[in-house]
């Protein structure tokens, strides 16, 4: 069954001022209702920039979208006037950020901050907004929810703050929820609580979820689909099982192999040599070429096209599928 995606990002490219190349380069993906797409990749590869672009929160003076479209429920967000986007933000699409410690305004009570989101979009009375906030607090299983409404952020632990953020994001029943590494800053046990909570709430509301992370464990737990990003490009994407069972792109392999296995030591760790090139010295062709153990001369020249590997999996590598291309050599 094919449904219309809630979010459809097409060939999105973003360039920062003073830089020679598009940092985000023709990125495409889409998410359907109730589904979760995980965007993974190393730090600095452009995950957050992509998500901010979707939300219309990019710093206007520093970043420009050079091409592409971000369709949300049919509208192209990139062409909408600012006031229309403001009406959407926090209402039909919402976002949770990485740093629960700093993402809440220290000067206002958490209840106020949640209620504010409700009042802004639902135009209800303060009392109604507060009731909604309380309801949300209960929903995110905030202990002693009623009392907590009047707490200031600093009186809460990281896990609770992240619950507040989730409550705030979901207060207006958004169709799209973007979560930018919502658990990275939390301890393992708390992280598990939050992940469970998000999964549950998503099941409840049927919102589409764009989850950004660099932890493959999290991906495995929550994702329906995965997009692996390297240096501003999506190098591999597909359903989660395919990516874990049939990784194709050398970068995906490197990424997986360099993670120590929790199930027990499996010999020396794999490594990806070198480092991500600077924008100024970004290779012409495949951006991973300078670090790829399977590199060929041709890789440096032209950008590899995304090729379909079957089962919804797509890979942008000249040498995919590896087994046949490399194994044969």
């Amino acid at each position, binding site marked *: 069954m094919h449904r219309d995606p809630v979010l459809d990002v097409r060939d999105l490219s973003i360039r920062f001022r003073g830089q020679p190349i598009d940092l985000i380069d023709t990125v495409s993906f889409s998410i359907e209702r109730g589904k979760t797409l995980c965007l993974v990749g190393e730090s600095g590869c452009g995950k957050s920039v992509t998500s901010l672009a979707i*939300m219309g929160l990019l710093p206007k003076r520093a970043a420009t979208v050079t091409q592409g479209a971000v369709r949300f429920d049919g509208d192209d967000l990139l062409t909408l006037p600012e006031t229309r986007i*403001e009406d959407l933000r926090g209402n039909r699409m919402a976002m949770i*950020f990485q740093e629960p410690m700093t993402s809440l*305004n*220290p000067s206002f009570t958490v209840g106020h901050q949640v209620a504010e989101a409700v009042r*802004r979009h639902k135009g209800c009375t303060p009392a109604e907004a507060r009731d909604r906030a309380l309801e949300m607090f209960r929903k995110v299983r905030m202990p002693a929810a009623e009392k907590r409404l009047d707490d200031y952020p600093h009186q809460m632990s990281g896990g609770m703050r992240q619950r507040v953020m989730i409550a705030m994001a979901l207060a207006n029943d958004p169709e799209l929820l973007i979560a930018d590494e919502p658990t990275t800053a939390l301890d393992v046990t708390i992280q598990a609580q939050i992940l469970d909570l998000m999964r549950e709430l998503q099941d409840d509301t049927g919102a589409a979820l764009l989850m950004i992370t660099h932890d493959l464990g999290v991906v495995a737990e929550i994702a329906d689909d995965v997009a692996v990003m390297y240096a501003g490009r999506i190098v591999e994407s597909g359903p989660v099982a395919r990516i874990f069972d049939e990784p194709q792109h050398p970068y995906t392999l490197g990424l997986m192999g360099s993670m120590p296995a929790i199930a027990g030591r499996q010999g020396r760790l794999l490594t990806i040599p070198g480092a991500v090139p600077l924008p100024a010295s970004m290779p012409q062709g495949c951006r991973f070429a300078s670090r790829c153990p399977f590199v060929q001369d041709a890789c440096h020249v032209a950008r590899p096209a995304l090729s379909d590997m079957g089962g919804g999996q797509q890979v942008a590598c000249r040498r995919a599928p590896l087994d046949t291309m490399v194994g044969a050599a």
Partner: protein
Amino acid sequence: MLSFILRRILIAIPTLILVSMFVFALQKLLPGDPILVMAGEDRDPEVIALLREKYRMNEPLVMQYIYWAGDVLRGDLGISLRTNEPVLDLIASKLPVTIQLAIMSMLFAMLIGIPAGILSAVRKGTWVDWLANVVALSGLSIPNFWLGIMLILLVSVNLGWLPASGYESPWVDPWKSLTTMIMPAFVLGTALAATLMRHTRSAMLGVLQADYVRTARAKGLRARVVILKHAFRNAVLPVVTLSALLFGELLAGAVLTEQIFTIPGFGKLIVDAVFNRDYAVVQGVVLCTAVGFILMNLVADVLYVILNPRLRTAQ
């Protein structure tokens, strides 16, 4: 909170003692014999000897300090060597003037500095930012005394709009009081406005980059609400504290501005007293301004706690 304030007051005591010792030592180091000045043009040796005795100028410095400190503890700051007026009365008569000037200057400074600071932070990198910066820096860079003289020349002498100098108590004649104070308050205010503007700007810049401002935008709040509510509410903290501190400094009087506009406040009083070697006055007034300064520091800290929920609810 109360114990916090009490503790702060306790800490202030050694500071005050040190201030008094510094001032005492410093003025005793000043060359020039106050008794000679006081003896008058005729310098009668008999009078000189008597005055020396009377003001304990013959005793060792330490004893002089001890006598003075003892008197202060009994609430007696001594009498002016020059006019025989009790220093306490002097202070009482100058304090309202100084406070009025300080308040008006502060108002000028805040009315100019804070909006300009917000604007230039929000419009960072644009000509608005640049202009606000240049104006603010000008306020810092023009010497007060020069600006004062130029204003008198222009506004009072050439245009005749405002009185050139003097002081009128607001209880006696509020309108006159206002008109005489506007120019000096403006002159003082411009320099402070610059400081306030710069601090507001940098606080706002810091806050505008904060994650919670992004959160507020992600909620779909209008830009104005994001800036004035979410951002400014947090940026205001250092600004308010700074204002209290600046106010504390203003209490010490604006030496040259008061001199130029002939405003009978603390600044003029101290300078004249230093030049006249009116020790009792210097000592008393500096002590008083130090108390004011420390008090405003305390106010700044308390405001900081009150405005900062993180500290307010810490107990």
